[in-house]
């Protein structure tokens, strides 16, 4: 077995043993999507939501819920703990690079959230809910969102030495991001100024880009730009700030 495969397998096993992450990232959003998809009433356009259906407004929020839990909470938590425990330093003593661990984590986080997204999108379709009209644009919007979220997670893992502080910060940021994605107040219902702020957040832009793609049209340039911006800036910051010890 190659070092990379062994590392991914090992990290996958450890992730699966973390019941909190599994519950929040996989089971909860999937269950919510199934319930949402099973209720025909959620599929009707409502004037309250600016002509969108409840389902089409909430599907992106659930998709983002999964990736946010993994990228903003689980990823920095694991990396800061590994740094604190000296796991990263121990890896430096072996022929395998500690970068391998980083790669394994990113692969896993992305893999699990893609999987959970596929379930969130496909299972309700069997129950009669609509599939995204443009799967390719939906995928594009998803990948841009994932990049931005992973970048934010990596910045948290780089900024904080203390695992508890990182986890606390991640939790707060998770709720802020979910707020702007529209978990509590759906984006069409937000007051104009609030939606204006939301447009510039990674989660607000992601949520709207996913909704637009699901409706079959191109996401707005603004949202693509915002997601790209978050992805690039956070990646550069993380590369600059991340420390093994």
């Amino acid at each position, binding site marked *: *077995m*190659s*070092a990379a*495969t*062994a*590392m991914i397998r*090992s990290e996958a*096993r*450890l992730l699966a*043993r*973390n019941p909190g992450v599994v519950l929040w990232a996989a089971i909860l959003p999937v269950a919510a999507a199934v319930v949402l998809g099973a209720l025909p009433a959620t599929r009707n356009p409502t004037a309250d939501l600016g002509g969108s259906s409840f389902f089409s407004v909430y599907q992106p929020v659930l998709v983002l819920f999964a990736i946010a839990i993994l990228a903003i909470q689980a990823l920095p938590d694991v990396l800061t*703990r*590994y740094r604190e*425990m*000296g*796991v990263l*330093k*121990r890896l*430096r*003593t*072996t*022929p*395998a690079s500690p970068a391998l661990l980083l790669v394994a984590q990113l692969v896993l986080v992305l893999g699990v959230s893609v999987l959970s997204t596929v379930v969130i999108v496909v299972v309700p379709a069997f129950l009669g809910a609509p599939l995204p009209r443009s799967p390719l644009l939906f995928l594009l919007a998803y990948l841009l969102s994932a990049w931005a979220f992973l970048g934010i997670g990596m910045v948290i893992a780089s900024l904080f030495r203390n695992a508890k502080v990182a986890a606390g910060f991640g939790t707060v940021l998770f709720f802020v991001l979910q707020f702007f994605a529209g978990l509590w107040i759906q984006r069409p219902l937000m007051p104009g100024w609030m939606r204006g702020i939301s447009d510039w957040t990674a989660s607000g832009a992601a949520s709207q880009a996913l909704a637009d793609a699901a409706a079959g049209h191109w996401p707005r340039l603004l949202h693509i730009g915002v997601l790209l911006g978050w992805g690039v800036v956070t990646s550069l910051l993380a590369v600059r700030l991340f420390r093994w010890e």
Partner: protein
Amino acid sequence: MAMIDVQDVRKAYGGRTVLDGVSFTVEPGEIFGILGPNGAGKTTTVECIGGLRRRDGGRICVAGMDPADEGTAFREAVGIQLQESRLPDKQTVREALELYSAFYARPRDWRELVARLDLAGQQDAAYATLSGGQKQRLSVALALIGNPRVAILDELTTGLDPAARREVWGLLEDLRGTGVTLLLVSHFMEEAERLCDRVAVIDAGRVVALDTPEGLAASVQTDQRMTFEPSRPVDPDLLRLLPEVHTATEQGSRLVVTGTDDVTAAVVIALHGHGIAVHRLRVDQPRLDDAFVALTHEDEEAHR
């Protein structure tokens, strides 16, 4: 050729000198100890040797390679057990060993290591459930899993209870003669006395002594010290007349006498001449402990 060759290594952190010209060599198969008080520069020394820290000056050659290059061949040849390095709580012993095996080109059979380290019963136990001694033994196993030519073990037994400490020592004694060169960092004299072929004492960033543990102990001219209960009271002044005796004092019913190497025989014979028997005799040899205190203390004095 020496397995580890350290010449005049220097290191400073932000202007504070930590290593001030450290030099020593370690032969293949040797168990070499690095002793010193806290903050003496022991860990910095082995981290430079292990390629985890860059030296500011001097030369280091380990198994024919410069650790500063941090090459894969170097990592294959050198196993390091770090001070205070843990594993994920939920990783099992077997999983950790299998994972680390995958990193090396020619790993040891982890089953053999597990048996040798007496961890076979814990193979499927999660790291968090292991005892302190078991965690340390696993840590040693991970340092040895790649079949290294040199293993660096830093403060291996710190924080272990005496039983667990003896357990780990037993393991290292077993390693003697397997050809692995061991570099052992410690501040336990007993550990060095029991395991090491030679030790270097580091203090304030310099090697202040380098010898076998026995050689070091003998090098400090400490007196022999004997304590005993005489069969009837003895005037200490009587003993002070003997040329071998330096001091003689009463401690309750016991007498404490210090002097040259021959002091025990001289005192016993002299008392015998007076018809006095010596009961519950205890003789303390100068130990590495004494040498260590003398060496690192002298150095402190010199710095003042």
